[in-house]
């Protein structure tokens, strides 16, 4: 019925109160007129009464009520504290103690005649006192209010407290009845036991067992430090013992080791507090803030029970408050604005905490208007953080990082709420000080999520040990992303003076630890790369060797090292030697300027190369001519002997794996010389649904990873997408779909049902190669295709009145990329429901998530013709269906 935890809290508090009152009563005996003590006693009794009332412990409440009543008279000087009064008060305390002990054991109040009798005595005593007070002080100094209130309570039947002695007897019966009804069966059983207790344990001797003690936080901190020392000593012993073979020694060291770990963990627990301690302050803050801004905000708190080190809880309070304020002030719109953009008038703010990989993640999520990147960009230019030119090339992440720069605030006017001199830069610094990181994800019009990652505890952290020049360094595991073994000669790329590494396509600046530490070069031992993350950017740290990961105790460094950003402290290793703890943010600052330079120059390069991703292409010869095809389009390569080619029904075929496969000779469709007779030919197979055909060629030249960047002007010819010079030879890029169609016009026909109105598709794609290829297969499938070279052109086409049934967009495009395009599209009311298919050669969950976040409906890889077509069908079906229901 009653929540166990709350009851426990109540009991702890009650016991504290009782202990305190006991001391104070003793004090009071010595100094009967000490008003301070009387006041304190009254307060304690009062809160006990309140709490008992809350739980419905009526007897307890009753006793506390009368005691409080008597105390109030003593306090106000209405009666003299004589022996009799003190006696009865002490008796009250004893009974309270008895009831609390009983509650702790049985979770319910005792029902005993003795206690009820005592209540009657108390009631009478209180009444007598009242008269005495009246006589002593002439007229009524006693507050009549109290009585009135009591009567009111009585009438509602909430309290057993009585003011009038005549009623007491009746009341007593009532209380009994009520309680008996409440606890029927149980009470009966207990009743049998009760007489024993009654006689056996005189109330005055009740000992309350303590389940909780209050401990000075400093004491806990000291304990924590000692545990840290113990861990270090243990580590040392474990290492030393490895030299000996005495099994008994090993066993005892093992148990020492286990106990130490257990001890450390237990002590750590004493410092843990649920994050709810902080979260619970927010309902009030949010409410007040929303009111003052005329906004409506629903606050949802998730994971309030997530535990964190006390010191961290203290430290995140302010940053969190700031972020919550920001969300309400800048994020969530006014109710009218929300309704206009189709959202419910109440904004939602979610405060969420959870554990993930030894860290605590805190998210502050709102469904407000999001951060306007353009606005941030403008502001950054205005403030002189970047030039307008540079700003154009910045990624979303880079733009968002301006928010954390000091002196930056997007609020147009500084409001009382957010503009208090504390910026996001302070928030970021504070979180980084805790070894944490912060990142922002935002979607214009949809909302913003700020994610904070912080370690569970500060004192002992897991760290990776690396070496540079024979010295060990510790890197907090929190910042670690992965480890890579590399050959610096080959794998590290250079651009000017800076070095970088390509990790699955991502450009990561490289910091050589030895060099960062100020050693001169000429050091070739560095073969291991640690990929570190600061939350927003990654760096590759090149070290000599990577050791195990260890639990380390963070110790501060002296003041002489304060301005070296590379270290965040030092630690004592198992062998008693020291290792410096590397500060990842400091290291990244070391690479800071360079990163941007590298990214920029890469961006430029990419733009020059029409911003297309690379593909593997296959180069092959047909006679004297060279052709190229994306490897992904070819289902199989094989060789056949010339004599295995048969002519069946006027068509050249081969029997391949028990299937008749038609053969296509390119010279039949393209103005080329064609194949000279050979003994053996190469075959390129194409499969489409159940059908397979093969192209005959004389030689496979090479495969090559390259961009699909082609010249389209010179060879305008059905079946050719364009040409390019590769290794001094002109290579023609085949439009394989066209060729196959020329070979067999029926090949691709899947009967599309509703042919009356042709379905129109807008294709946003920058690469001419893909423009042609995709258009080619879409047209074959019966669609009308309009091409736009980038997002901006696509938007212009739409604005000029083109109304496609579906939009296909690439991601990487110059001027305006696909994500930006879709974002823009989704805010235009007439296009907010149009199905959008994103076609890309970029893969990965990150991209996919992003794509759906901006509002795309599907996501496919460019060369998967069949899947693209079925995705289109699917989307069209859905949109006509939903149009039908409208």
């Amino acid at each position, binding site marked *: 019925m009653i929540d166990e935890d709350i009851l426990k809290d109540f009991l702890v508090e009650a016991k504290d109160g009782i202990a305190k009152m006991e001391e104070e009563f003793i004090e009071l005996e010595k100094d009967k007129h000490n008003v301070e003590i009387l006041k304190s006693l009254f307060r304690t009794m009062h809160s006990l009464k309140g709490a008992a009332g809350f739980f419905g412990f009526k007897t307890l409440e009753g006793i506390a009520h009368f005691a409080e009543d008597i105390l109030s008279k003593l306090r106000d000087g209405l009666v003299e504290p004589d022996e009799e009064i003190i006696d009865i008060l002490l008796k009250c305390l004893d009974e309270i103690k008895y009831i609390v002990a009983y509650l702790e054991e049985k979770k319910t109040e005792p029902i005993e005649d003795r206690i009820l009798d005592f209540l009657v005595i108390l009631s009478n005593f209180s009444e007598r006192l009242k008269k005495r007070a009246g006589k002593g002080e002439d007229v009524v100094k006693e507050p009549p209010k109290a009585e009135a209130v009591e009567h009111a309570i009585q009438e509602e039947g909430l309290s057993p407290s009585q003011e009038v002695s005549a009623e007491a007897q009746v009341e007593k019966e009532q209380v009994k009845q009520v309680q008996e009804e409440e606890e029927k069966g149980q009470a009966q059983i207990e009743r049998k036991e009760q007489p024993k207790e009654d006689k056996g344990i005189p109330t005055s001797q009740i000992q309350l067992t303590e389940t909780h003690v209050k401990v000075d936080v400093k004491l806990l901190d000291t304990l924590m430090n000692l545990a840290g020392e113990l861990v270090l000593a243990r580590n040392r012993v474990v290492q030393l013992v490895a030299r000996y073979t005495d099994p008994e020694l090993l066993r005892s060291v093992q148990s020492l080791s286990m106990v130490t770990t257990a001890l450390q963990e237990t002590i750590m627990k004493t410092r843990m507090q649920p994050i709810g301690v902080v979260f619970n302050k927010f309902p009030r803050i949010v409410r007040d803030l929303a009111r003052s801004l005329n906004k409506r905000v629903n606050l949802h708190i998730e994971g309030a029970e997530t535990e964190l080190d006390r010191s961290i809880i203290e430290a995140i309070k302010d940053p969190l408050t700031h972020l919550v304020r920001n969300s309400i002030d800048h994020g969530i719109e006014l109710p009218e604005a929300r309704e206009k953009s189709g959202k419910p008038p109440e904004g939602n703010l979610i405060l969420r905490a959870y554990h993930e990989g030894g860290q605590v993640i805190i998210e502050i999520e709102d469904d407000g208007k999001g951060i306007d990147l353009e606005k941030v960009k403008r502001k950054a230019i205005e403030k002189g953080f970047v030039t307008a030119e540079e700003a154009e090339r910045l990624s979303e992440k880079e733009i968002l990082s301006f928010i954390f720069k000091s002196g930056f605030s997007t609020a147009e006017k500084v409001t009382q709420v957010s503009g208090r001199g504390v910026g996001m830069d302070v928030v970021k610094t504070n979180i980084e000080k805790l070894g944490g990181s912060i990142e922002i994800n935002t979607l214009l019009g949809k909302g913003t999520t700020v994610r904070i990652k912080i370690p569970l505890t500060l004192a002992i952290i897991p760290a990776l040990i690396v070496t540079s020049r024979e*010295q060990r360094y510790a890197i907090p595991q929190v910042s670690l992303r992965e480890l890579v073994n590399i050959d610096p000669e080959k794998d590290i790329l250079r651009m000017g003076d800076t070095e970088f590494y390509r990790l699955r396509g991502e450009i990561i600046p490289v910091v050589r630890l030895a060099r960062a530490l100020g050693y001169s070069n000429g050091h070739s031992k560095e073969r291991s790369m640690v990929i570190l993350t600061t939350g927003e950017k990654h760096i590759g740290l090149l070290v000599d060797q990577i050791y195990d990961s260890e639990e380390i105790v963070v110790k501060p460094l002296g003041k002489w*090292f304060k301005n070296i950003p590379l270290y965040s402290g030092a630690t004592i290793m198992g062998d*008693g030697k*020291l290792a410096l703890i590397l500060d990842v943010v400091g290291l990244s600052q070391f690479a800071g300027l360079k990163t941007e330079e590298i990214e920029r120059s890469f961006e430029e390069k990419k733009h020059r190369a029409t911003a297309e991703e690379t593909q593997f292409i296959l180069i092959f010869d047909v006679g004297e001519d060279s052709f190229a095809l994306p490897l992904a389009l070819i289902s199989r390569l094989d060789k056949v002997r010339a004599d295995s080619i048969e002519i069946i029904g006027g068509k050249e075929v081969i029997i391949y794996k028990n299937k008749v496969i038609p053969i296509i000779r390119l010279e039949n469709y393209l103005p080329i010389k064609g194949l000279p007779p050979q003994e053996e030919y190469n075959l390129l197979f194409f499969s489409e649904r159940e059908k397979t055909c093969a192209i005959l060629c004389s030689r496979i030249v090479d495969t090559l990873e390259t961009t699909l960047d082609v010249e389209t002007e010179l060879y305008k010819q059905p079946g050719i997408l364009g040409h390019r010079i590769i290794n001094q030879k002109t290579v023609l890029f085949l439009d394989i779909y066209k060729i196959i169609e020329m070979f067999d016009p029926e090949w691709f026909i899947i009967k599309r049902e509703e042919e009356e109105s042709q379905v129109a598709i807008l294709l946003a794609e920058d690469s001419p190669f893909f423009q042609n290829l995709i258009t080619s297969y879409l047209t074959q499938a019966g669609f009308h295709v309009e091409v736009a070279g980038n997002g901006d052109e696509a938007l212009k086409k739409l604005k000029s009145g083109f109304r496609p049934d579906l939009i296909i967009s690439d991601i990487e495009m110059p001027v305006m990329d696909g994500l930006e395009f879709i974002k823009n599209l989704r805010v235009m009311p007439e296009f907010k429901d149009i199905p959008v298919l994103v076609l890309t050669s970029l893969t990965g969950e990150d991209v996919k998530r992003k794509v759906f976040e901006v509002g795309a409906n599907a996501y496919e890889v460019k060369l998967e013709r069949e899947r693209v077509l079925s995705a289109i069908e699917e989307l069209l079906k859905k949109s006509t269906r939903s149009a039908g229901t409208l």
Partner: protein
Amino acid sequence: MAERTLPVLKEKKTLTRQETMPVVTFYLGDFLFGVPAEKVMEINKDLDLTPVPLAPSYILGIMNLRGQILTVMDLAKRISLKVETKPRLNLIVRADEDVVSFLIERIGDIMEIPLSKLEEPPPKIEGFDRIYIDRIYQLPDRLLTILSVEKLLES
């Protein structure tokens, strides 16, 4: 109440100390230096040193003294002593919160030096920086330079 009695006690202390001050002396090259004994925690031999790259040149690194991490300072470099030294002892001193180990060559006597005989350093000192000198004391055969630990520990 307690606060009021304190200064009196302090005064008494300094009064009794008026006569002499214990000083730990040590050598760097041929120079005899001293620091007040009350600042000295202990003297150690050959403790394992961990270098801290990028630190000021007079900081040699850090070391582990029974679980406490100390900064190790090359005292000769700190005071710009223009003499080759081969330091092999750690003189561990404390001032306020900071604990630092000074590397010295050889330990000398612990002397009780009459305060009245302490002199201001001359305006010009040959061989090292004057700013770290607290007082000087003329011994029969040589000069004892008493260094200011506070000054030395200033960053």
